[in-house]
């Protein structure tokens, strides 16, 4: 069985797209082959900056012959129908077979599709894969209309048989003819290279300074980098994404380590690291004795006669120029920070946050007031919370953050330190943007929590006030992320507090900012209320997403949201988690069924009778032991459940409810509620209503599905 080798040789493919593209090539190509009847033993794909490569081993040499039976018209059908069937099936009258069926004789045709050779199938599938390749961005070049990520120069496509004999698959895509030729390293071994199999190809490439496998390149880079750092008594700062990117920028990695000019060593390590990574794609090398970043590692794409001396010197010069900028920004910023940062805060007035919500300075005012109000609920000092909120955005106009926006917050902390502010203020500046993603750490320091909450609530209420809510997939201001941030801050810090008063304060200010000159206060009040209720619903939706990840079903959350106090998110989560756990137990599931049965019977009776059965069940009208047992169980259970619910101990409440399961089950097994005696019937209905009432105090179980 032959092996297939494909290489798509192009101009430089963006590093970030390579791994995905190799995978897409493998999946689409093998899917296409299999669909056409060519199964295979194994496949692997590779990418370098200039090529995507696929090797498929043990491919069928031709697709199997397929026979398909097709049912036609009845023997007595009009001639036209039979002719139509013959045309559609592509067979002649003699090929038809008559079979006896219940309704008479029916024509059958057997269509035989002969197998096709691998060459033809590969050519067809590969052309389609090339023409429909899912590049994130593709382009045209020259006078052609073919699209590829960058100009495509060669298609290598060969089938190698068991004897090692290679055949070029004849094909042509917009004038690019498939061949058996590739190229080595652009500079170290230019020129065409004929290959006959995958083994030959990968060996030949290595001989021509191309390491085909990105994982191998990454491994080689990391090995060499750590060895060189180790030899100098240092360590490389690990950075997986940078390693993957750098491995996608070279075909023949050569690791070079250089020293950072001494005048820059006092810059914050994050500044050195960010500048080196963002601008130069350098790794940072730390001296464990000083804790400072003192060297850099760059990865060149070639060996040179001077062992990389020219390349390293050039890189060091570029780095020094970059860091000179960084040092200049840092010194200027420190001067401003030590002066108190008044110029920064002032300049926030000129920065528009959103044209309907005013400037960043106005936003800071709102966050400061809100942080002060939130402080007691999260155990923070109100003055500190306000001070921290006022400083939280101070670094935005700094020169360093202008250059490296990703250092926002962190620089705020450095500058707070330089300004001699309390440590809590600096920490809040750094942490108040968190959590950004679902796996991000949640701040725990009270002042940071207060500012983080204030920041996010102002964002949310602001955009609610100007009616810029997220719709569908559109969420340009990342409001869903902000709401999830609030939820995680509150829940993970176990902040027991109603959200509505916080919403209220934030919304009042946001509305004022959004419509400073609106006169009709009553209308405004109404808008506030609608917006707040709407915002709470948005939070409940976000909470569903949050709890779903923790295995809590949406209907369970609905059942808990329907309860009073649903703006206390920590309470809501506690209730939902307990209910979810309870319903996963046998007792919980059966109790739920018992409740539903009771509720159904009651609802029907109440509808029919036009009254509500809610009071007056008396054990003296009980006729059976099971009835009496249920009375006893409820008498005992109700106080325990109520007490547990009052202390918000949902787990204990559910345990107490579990004790009701057996008596309820027994009751329904033994007792017919709707009997002829109206007294007994009413008594039983009133007894059922006790079940309904006690269950509904835990959660609105009518909303649970199933």
């Amino acid at each position, binding site marked *: 069985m032959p092996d297939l080798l494909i290489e798509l040789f192009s*101009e*430089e493919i*963006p*590093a*970030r797209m390579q791994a995905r593209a190799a995978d897409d090539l493998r999946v689409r190509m093998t899917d296409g082959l299999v669909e056409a009847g060519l199964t295979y033993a194994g496949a692997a794909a590779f990418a370098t*900056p200039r090529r995507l490569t696929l090797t498929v081993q043990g491919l069928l040499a031709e697709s199997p012959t397929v026979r398909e039976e097709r049912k036609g018209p009845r023997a007595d059908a009009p001639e036209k129908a039979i002719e139509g069937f013959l045309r559609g099936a592509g067979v002649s009258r003699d090929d038809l077979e008559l079979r006896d069926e219940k309704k008479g004789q029916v024509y059958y045709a057997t269509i035989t599709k002969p197998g096709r050779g691998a060459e033809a199938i590969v050519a067809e599938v590969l052309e389609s894969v090339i023409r429909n390749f899912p590049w994130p*961005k593709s*382009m*045209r*070049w*020259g*006078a*052609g*209309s073919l699209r590829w*990520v*960058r*100009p495509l*120069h060669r298609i290598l496509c060969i089938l190698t048989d068991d004897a090692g004999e290679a055949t070029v698959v004849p094909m042509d895509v917009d004038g690019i003819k498939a061949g058996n030729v590739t190229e080595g390293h652009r*500079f170290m071994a230019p020129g065409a290279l004929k290959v006959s199999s995958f083994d030959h190809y990968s060996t030949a490439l290595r001989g021509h300074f191309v390491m085909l496998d990105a994982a191998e390149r990454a491994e080689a880079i990391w090995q060499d980098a750590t060895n060189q750092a180790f030899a100098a008594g240092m360590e490389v700062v690990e950075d997986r994404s940078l390693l993957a990117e750098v491995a996608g*920028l*070279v075909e023949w990695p050569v690791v070079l380590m250089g020293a950072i000019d001494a005048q820059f060593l006092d810059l914050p390590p994050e500044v050195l690291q960010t500048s080196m990574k963002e601008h*130069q794609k*350098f790794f940072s090398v730390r001296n464990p004795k000083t804790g400072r970043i003192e060297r850099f590692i*760059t990865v*060149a*794409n*070639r060996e*040179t*006669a*001077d062992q990389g001396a*020219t*390349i390293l*010197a*050039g*890189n060091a*010069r*570029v*780095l*020094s*120029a970059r860091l000179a900028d960084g040092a200049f920004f840092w010194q200027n910023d420190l001067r401003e920070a030590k002066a108190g940062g008044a110029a920064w805060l002032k300049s926030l007035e*000129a*920065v*528009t946050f959103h*044209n309907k919500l005013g400037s960043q300075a106005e936003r800071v005012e709102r966050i400061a007031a809100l942080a002060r109000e939130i402080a007691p609920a999260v155990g923070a000092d109100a003055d500190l919370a306000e001070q921290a909120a006022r400083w939280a955005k101070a670094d935005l106009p700094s020169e360093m953050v202008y250059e490296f926006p990703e250092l926002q917050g962190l620089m705020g902390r450095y500058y707070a330190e330089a300004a001699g502010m309390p440590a809590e203020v600096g920490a809040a500046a750094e942490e108040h943007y968190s959590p950004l993603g679902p796996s991000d750490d949640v701040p725990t320091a009270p002042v940071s929590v207060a500012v983080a909450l204030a920041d996010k609530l102002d964002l949310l209420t602001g955009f609610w006030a100007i009616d810029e809510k997220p719709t569908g997939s559109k969420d340009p201001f990342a409001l869903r992320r902000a709401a999830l941030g609030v939820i995680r801050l509150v829940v993970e810090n176990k902040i027991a507090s109603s959200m509505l008063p916080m919403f209220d304060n934030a919304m009042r200010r946001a509305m004022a900012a959004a419509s400073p000159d609106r006169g009709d206060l009553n209308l405004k009040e109404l808008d506030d209320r609608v917006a707040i209720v709407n915002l709470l619903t948005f939070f409940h939706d976000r909470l569903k997403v949050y709890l779903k990840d923790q295995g809590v079903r949406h209907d369970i959350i609905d059942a808990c949201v329907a309860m009073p106090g649903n703006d206390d998110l920590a309470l809501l989560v506690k209730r939902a988690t307990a209910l979810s756990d309870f319903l996963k137990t046998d007792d919980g599931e059966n109790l739920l069924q018992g409740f539903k049965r009771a509720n159904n019977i009651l609802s029907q009776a109440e509808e029919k009778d036009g009254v509500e059965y809610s009071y007056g069940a008396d054990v003296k009208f009980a006729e059976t032991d099971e009835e009496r047992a249920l009375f006893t169980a409820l008498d005992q259970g109700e106080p325990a459940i109520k007490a547990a619910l009052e202390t918000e101990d949902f787990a204990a409440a559910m345990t107490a409810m579990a004790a009701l399961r057996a008596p309820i089950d027994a009751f329904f097994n033994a007792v017919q509620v709707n009997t002829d005696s109206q007294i007994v019937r009413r008594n039983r209905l009133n007894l059922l209503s006790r079940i309904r009432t006690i269950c509904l105090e835990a959660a609105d179980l009518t909303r649970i599905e199933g």
Partner: protein
Amino acid sequence: MSDQASKPRSFQEIILRLQAYWAEQGCAVMQPYDMEVGAGTFHPATTLRSLGSRPWAAAYVQPSRRPTDGRYGDSPNRWQHYYQFQVIIKPSPPDLQALYLGSLEAIGIDMALHDIRFVEDDWESPTLGAWGLGWEVWCDGMEVSQFTYFQQVGGHDCAPVSGELTYGLERLAMYVLGYDDGNAMPFNAPDAPIPLTYGDVFREAEAQYARWNFDVADTDILLQHFIDAEAECARILEQPADDPKTGRRIVMAQPAYDQCIKASHIFNLLDARGVISVTERQAYIGRVRTLAKACADAFVQTQAGGWEAA
């Protein structure tokens, strides 16, 4: 080869070598466009000629102005007036990368000792309604050129596609000549009877323009100029194609485009004066783009833009 590979000694020698190299590759070596522009791409030889089906190949130096980059001549690597070397070839030849690398050799970069890399960098000009895919080219970690395959200009698909190369001449020259301070690098030959540095030529003017750009330019007048240029551009394009005087078909795409260039530069000046807010910025860029698109629409109605009488 030995002569070619020898190190150039001055800023102007780098320009001369690039011009000679690209002339040899068949480009029309043009002169700078006689208007203030922010980048070499604005030259009609690139913007307009990248439209339509007619083949084209040009290379030129373009003095460019970015008022916000002014540093009063004190920065070692930033000037509000600087030079770009621009190459534009339509359709992009299949060996454009190799041609480009040849140009680096021509200015004395030894491929055997340096590390040249093509690093993803997609180009977009919101003011020109243009975008393309390509790379920034790194030499030993330093960006020395932009390499772009134009996909769209003025809202029109580029077919065929032009390949565009832009060399930032100051940075490239500093690297090749070995200077950290651009003002100190030789502009002409260091052993010329009157040797001049880059700073000798430009430093004084840099300070003057920085002061004017940042603090003195009359923003009311500039704003009026912007409005005038916008109106004139529209008025030019409103004229019927047939000239009543000569009786010939004359679509005035380039005079209209001059007004678009003017508006774009005036916008940059207003920006440097700090009178354009973040939200207004987008609106101004949109207004210039509207002009650029209208000019592109007009250019494809000219013969140079591929129009043929029916």
